[in-house]
């Protein structure tokens, strides 16, 4: 994998500023928003009802922002070696994510301090950031 610079060494991560975390690619399928609505309890019709979404001026059903944030989180925990590694994640939601379009999460280590890697990360779809200015803290 290109940019595969975060390495596991005897259970610890060896990272330095400028390293990229492994890229995560995911394509939400046609019914993803329905499954996520059930899993999360967020049944806002803009996510699950195509007609309603169009009536309120959207191009169609849009992804739940917190689902997209979960993809950003997953990229960090996969880089960090598990769920216990993610200490903090802050994101800004921009634009709208759409089902059936591939999402790519990338991230770069901004600094390493006190056993924590601070990662600047972004989620893009069709060349546009749908999550931007995101910052994660991963315990090393």
């Amino acid at each position, binding site marked *: 994998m290109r940019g595969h610079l975060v390495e596991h060494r005897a259970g610890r991560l060896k990272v330095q500023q400028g390293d990229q975390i492994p890229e995560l690619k995911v394509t939400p399928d046609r019914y993803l928003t329905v*499954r996520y609505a059930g*899993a*999360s*309890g967020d049944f806002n019709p803009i996510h699950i009802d195509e007609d309603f979404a169009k009536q309120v001026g959207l191009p169609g059903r849009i992804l739940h922002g*917190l689902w997209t*944030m979960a*993809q950003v989180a997953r990229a960090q*925990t996969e880089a960090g070696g598990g769920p216990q590694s*993610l200490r903090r994640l802050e994101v800004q939601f921009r634009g709208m994510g759409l089902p059936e379009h591939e999402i790519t999460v990338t991230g770069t280590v901004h600094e390493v301090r006190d056993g924590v890697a601070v990662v600047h990360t972004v989620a893009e779809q069709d060349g546009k950031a749908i999550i931007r200015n995101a910052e994660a803290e991963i315990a090393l």
Partner: protein
Amino acid sequence: MPPVAVDTAAIGKQYPPVTYAVGREKIREYAFAVGETNPLHLDVEAARAAGYRDVVAPPMFASVYCSRAVGPAYFDPEVGIDFARLVHSGQEFRWGPLVVAGDEVSTALSIKDISERAGAGFYVFESVSTNQDGDVVCVGTWSNIVRGG
């Protein structure tokens, strides 16, 4: 566009904590929905072998156990959000110990800030989630914009 009428009186308002019982199958359902493949979230034996009592909730499962605690603020007339013009603009979570199936997580929500800039209303909520042992498992900052219209 006319500006949003912003009332800041609700800043500091606190809502009664809401307790969420974390279920094993709910964690699995959530893990499948977000594409988690780590066996800690799916396989009880794998989770136990790693030293956890039961399957582990992915960090972003916070959005599930916080949900019923956060909801009332969005519909509180004292906060005054126009839901039709609401955009969830930003989110932060800071995590403590991992949540596992069988935990009871209590979430208290407060209104951290309400302000108006350039005709739009900015509403920031804070959630503090605590497990049955008194450990803070997650602090969430929920940022919302209500656009003028």
